Each structure stands twice: as C-alpha cells, then as structure tokens.
C-alpha cells in the first residue's frame, strides 16, 4: 500500500522519499520499516473513529447548545420564541445532520484560532471548540493540566515498570519460594483492590499519622516537595498496574522458562543467568510492552477518581467539572485527548515491539 502511494507522487518527491526509506531500510532492515509505515497508516483511521465516538458521546446529553443558551437567557429575563431558537440553530448549523455537524467539529478542531480571535468569532458563529463554562478555547483549558497529567502518568508508569519487573523475574525464577508466594499474594490483592478504595484508606491514614492530609500536588516547594506530594498518588494509582504487570510477567516468564529453547541453551553450556536474561526475559517482556497502551488507559482511568479523592490538579477533576456543568465540548475534548494519548501509546508500543520481536516484523504484525 505504501509503495503504491509512493509511486503515484511526482518523481522528484518519489526519489527523495525512496532515498529516505531506503536508508531507513538499510539501517533497520526492510521488514521493520514496512511494518512501521503500515502501523502509522492504521493510526489515522483509528484516530478518526475515536473522534467520531467522542462526538457521538458529546451529542448524547439531551438538549443542545441553543437550548442551553435559551435557558440561560430565560434566566436573565429574556425569552426567545421557538422560531427564533430554530433560526439560531440554523445559523449555528446544529440543525444539520449528525455527520455534517461532525465535519464542522473536526474542522474547528484542526483549525486552531487564538483566544482573541475566538471572542470575535463567537458573536457571529458558533464554534465547536469552545468551552461554554470557561469562555475559552478548549485547548487553552486542557493545556493548563495536560502537562502535569502526562508528567504524573509517565512517572507512575516508570515506577510501575521499575518495581514490577524485577519482582516478577525473581518470582518466576524462584517459583514456589516464600518470596514468590508473597509477591503473588500482594500482586493479586493489589490488582484486585480498586484504586479509589486505596486512595481513601491512604488519605485517611496519612491524615491520622501526620495530622495533615496529603492532598493535592505541591508545586511551590521545588522538586523535592513535588516528589513528596507524589508519593501517595503514585502508590494509589500505580499499585494496580504494578501488581498487574507482576502477574503477567511472572506467568509469561514461567511460560518461557518451560520452553524447549531454554533446554537447548542449557545443553550448549550457557550460564543459567544468561538463559534467564538473554532468552526468557527478552521473550517474556514482549506482551508487557504491547500492553503499554492498556496500561496508559488504565492509568488515566484510575487517576480520574483517585485525583478527585486526593485532590490532584490533573485532568480528572477538570473532566468532572466539565461534565457536571454539561460543558460537553470541553469534556469530550478531554476524553479525546486521553484516548489519542492511549492510541499513540499503542502505536509506540507496537513499534518498540517490532524492534524487540523479529516475528512481528516478519508477519507484518497482527495485533
């Protein structure tokens, strides 16, 4: 597919493209480049479907922008007739079919005007990317918290992998030892107990012990203060993921240790530790890498309620506020940003996986 599109572009471009792709192919091997191009091409329809779904959700609540405006005006003592309201609808384009409205929404999302432009536009034209509540461009609102959300999510993710993988490898190589049992039990409980339950309990305990609830993120007292305030969120949001990874990596490791090729390697005289690290671990880590998107998704999911309990200034509470105010464009955009981040996570993990696992490059990859 990619070669076809390449051929159809004009010749100069084709040449330079070919050059780039060929040099990439030489560097990484041709299978991997083909695979990555394919995955990136698949990424685009996925994003479109995500946006479609999000728009569908935005449209679900009863009433529309005009009816909420009408209600607002009514509150201010100004009444609009049914006809006037319908004229407004026609002007804003919300009387058009669903699919046209979706197109307008996408157009507004891709085209990003500045805030000052916004106010100007807003008087004559309904913009689909406008937060009613905050009277701002949706992006401006999201940007406020997006950075910190991504930062916290990445820190938690690194924490999860750093803690869980060594435990899982130990657990698998020392199967049925006391350590393995403890890790298994903790892993199971941690994965089974819901995030916000832990959040409640830790919040209560920290308040009991320190007399001051560790609530919110400390952004004023430098890096150390910030990290300190991260401890409970990391534990709360990270636990279920950590335990999940322990469980899956352990099972995967045990699976790989039982494979014939470990026996072959042993028969060659390879050291036991080399067998574990070079062969088993390398193979066992793949499903975990491919689960990166899912982990990211569950991080966002878990952090939403937890953030409310712990009062973290990340995207979760923003989403809740938007939903409670029926500010659907903001809410929809937040959900969409998170979904796109997850999809990007899946894409990245697929690419990393292609480097790690030769079979995926070869088969062209089927997830």
């Amino acid at each position: 597919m990619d070669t076809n599109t390449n051929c159809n572009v004009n010749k100069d471009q084709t040449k330079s493209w070919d050059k780039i792709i060929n040099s990439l192919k030489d560097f990484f091997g041709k299978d991997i480049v083909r695979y990555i191009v394919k995955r990136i091409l698949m990424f685009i329809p996925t994003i479109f479907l995500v946006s479609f779904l999000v728009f569908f959700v935005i449209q679900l609540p009863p009433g529309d922008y005009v009816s909420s405006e009408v209600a607002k005006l009514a509150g201010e003592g100004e009444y609009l007739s049914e006809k006037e309201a319908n004229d407004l609808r026609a002007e804003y384009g919300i009387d058009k079919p669903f699919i046209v409205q979706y197109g307008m929404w996408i157009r507004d999302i891709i085209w990003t005007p500045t805030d000052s432009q916004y106010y100007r536009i807003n008087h004559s034209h309904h913009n689909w990317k406008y937060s009613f509540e905050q009277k701002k461009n949706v992006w401006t609102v999201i940007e406020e918290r997006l950075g910190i959300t991504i930062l916290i999510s990445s820190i938690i993710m690194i924490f999860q992998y750093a803690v869980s993988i060594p435990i899982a490898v130990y657990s698998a190589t020392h199967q049925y030892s006391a350590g393995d049992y403890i890790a298994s039990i903790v892993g199971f409980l941690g994965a089974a107990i819901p995030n916000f339950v832990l959040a409640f309990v830790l919040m209560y305990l920290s308040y009991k012990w320190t007399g001051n609830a560790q609530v919110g993120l400390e952004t004023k007292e430098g890096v150390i203060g910030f990290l300190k305030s991260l401890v409970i969120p990391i534990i709360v949001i990270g636990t279920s993921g950590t335990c999940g990874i322990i469980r899956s990596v352990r099972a995967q490791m045990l699976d790989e240790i039982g494979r014939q090729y470990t026996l072959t390697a042993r028969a060659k005289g390879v050291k036991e530790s080399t067998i574990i690290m070079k062969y088993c671990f390398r193979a066992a880590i793949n499903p975990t890498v491919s689960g990166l998107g899912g982990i990211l998704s569950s991080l966002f999911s878990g952090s939403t309620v937890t953030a409310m309990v712990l009062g973290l200034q990340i995207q979760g509470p923003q989403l809740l506020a938007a939903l409670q105010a029926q500010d659907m464009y903001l809410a929809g955009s937040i959900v969409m940003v998170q979904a796109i981040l997850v999809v990007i996570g899946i894409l990245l993990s697929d690419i990393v996986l292609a480097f790690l696992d030769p079979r995926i490059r070869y088969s062209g990859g089927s997830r």
Partner: protein
Amino acid sequence: MSKKKKTKEDYYLASQWTLMARKLKKHKLAKVSLIILAILYFGALFADFFAPYSISNTSSLYKDTFPSKIHVMHDGEFVGPFVYGLTKTINKKDLKAPIVIEEDTSQYYKIGLFVHGDEYKVLGLFTSDIHFFGLKEGSNGGTSARIYLFGGDVLGHDILSRIIVGGRISLTIPFASAFISFFLGITIGSLSGYFGGVFDMIVQRIIEVIGAIPQIPLWMALSAAIPDGISTVKIYLYITIILSFINWTGMARIVRGKFLSLKNEDYVMAARLAGVSTWKIIWKHLVPGFLSYLIVALTLGIPGSIVGETSMSYLGLGIKDPATSWGVLLQEASDVKVVAAYPFKLIPIIFVAITVLAYNFLGDGLRDAADPYK
C-alpha cells in the same frame, strides 16, 4: 480397587461442566468467594428484612452518630446484649461544642432477632414489618433509642441499612450489565468471526477504539447524558447500559478469536462435510467449546463494573439521593476531615473491596477450572 477404577472412568466420561465444578471445589479461595457472594446477593434480595431500618427512617439525634456500643451489663446485672439511648444536653459554657450528645444510661434497650420495625414489602408482594434484628420495642419502654451498628450518616440514617439496601443497586447493576454485554458480545463476536471481511474489519476497529478510550472517563462522559429528574429505575437502566458499553468489546473479541481459530478445526470441517447446518455447527460444536472461557471473562469483568458504578455514583454522575448505592454512601467520605472525624463512614468501602475481591478470586478459580491442561 473396582471403585477406584470407577472414579477414574467417571473422570474420563465427565462432561466439561462437571470437571469444572469439580476443579472449582478444590479451589478453596474461589469456594469461599462464592459463598460470600451468595450471602451478599441473598442479603440484597431480602434487603428490607435484613436492614434494621427503612432507608427513609431518620433521626436528628443520630446525625453522624458513632456505631452503637453494645453492652451486656446494666447496673452490675447481666441482661444480655442491649444498647443505651442517646440524650442531648446543651452546654452553654463551651461555645465551641454547645450540644453534647451522650449515652443515656438510665434505660436499656435489648437487642432481639425478628423484631417488629418499619413496614416494607417482601419481594413487592406482601407487607411485613419483621426485621432480622433490631431493638425489642418496649422491652424497657421508649422507642427513640436506635441501634446503628455502623453509625449514622449526615441526615441520621442508619449506615448499615443503607449499605444493605444500596447493595441491591451496587451488586445487581454490574451483574445485569455483564449479561447484556454477554449477549452483545456473543452476537457481534460470532457474526464478526463468522462473516469476516468488511463487517469484521469495522467491528474490529470499533472494538479497538472503544478499548483505547480510558474506561472511567468514558463512563463519566456517557453518564452525563442521563437526564435529570428521571426515576431511579430509569437511571438504573441507563447505568447498566453504559457499563455494558465497554464490556461487550472484550467478550466479542474472545468470541471472534475463538471462532476464527475453531472455524478451521478438523471437527468443524467434519461436521460440515456430514451436512450439519451452519447454525447447528455454531451452537452445538463451536459455542460450547469456549463458553467456559466466556463465563470466566464475564466474572472477571464484573469487578470493573462494580468499581465503575461506585465511582460514578460517588462522583454524583450515577445513582443520586434519595436512591442508595455504595457509591452514594461514599459521597459523605469525600472530605478528609469528615473521614478523620467519623472514620466509620469508610465502612461502605469494605463492602466494595470484599465484593470486588470475591469476584476476582472466583474468576481466578473459574479460569483455573476452565483450563483443561491444569
């Protein structure tokens, strides 16, 4: 010897389900979980009977009250388990806490089983006022005393009663949504796996996309669509559907995968060559082959829904007062200072945790039992 041989023979001849049940019996945690869940659901079914008070029964005296202390000795005499009532005195000297509520030790109120209390309808059929336990009325005069084992909420309701009644919603919504997703999943998954082609591709993309959107934010966004001021039954229905919205995808993926791999098995080919109809092949030969896996997936999907419902109600997006669910009960615990002052308000969390754990253990046990290679 012959007996041994017979059990061996039974083993070889046993159906998949008998084998699963047998293996599940060996899984102690799963068995305990099953019993716990049975108790919880039984309690929810006869909630009005097990709850000592109706959830509309309040008492201003018992606002935010700590769990009732159960005594056995009154004035140095043994009288069996009883509680004291509360009295309110006004302390004018201490301006910070002018109202003092204390136990009134002058009278005692015995605790009894099957006592008369608030009226309710048993399974919506006939009226009764018998409660599983409560204070024996008139055992020592006066009826203002109450037994609040888990304390009272901010309006003076009995938290225990609300937990039991709330279990009705919190326990059944995930169950109901699991069934909806079960049928959606089987239908869509089998069609997708059977027809393949464009239909399959579209379904696959949709599943992928729904899977990519973080669960709870999506649930929250969907529940914003629940209109205000509708009946509890309708809210219940909406939430059930919202929860199924994500769960069916997992189910459909399993069904589709199994269909794809089983479609080309020799025994299916053999059945086809023998002239068995497609419909019969699907339901007689294919579905039983992976039904056990579906049930495992179903069980393991329920905890997520429980957390989902609880979270949504906790955030005020799901079940709303005066209807009760565990999430609604937790709303009171959202302020850390309130929790520190009245830690018993966290009790509903224990029920959420126990239920979620029980489902997880049960699902784990079922998974082991369903695995023919173990």
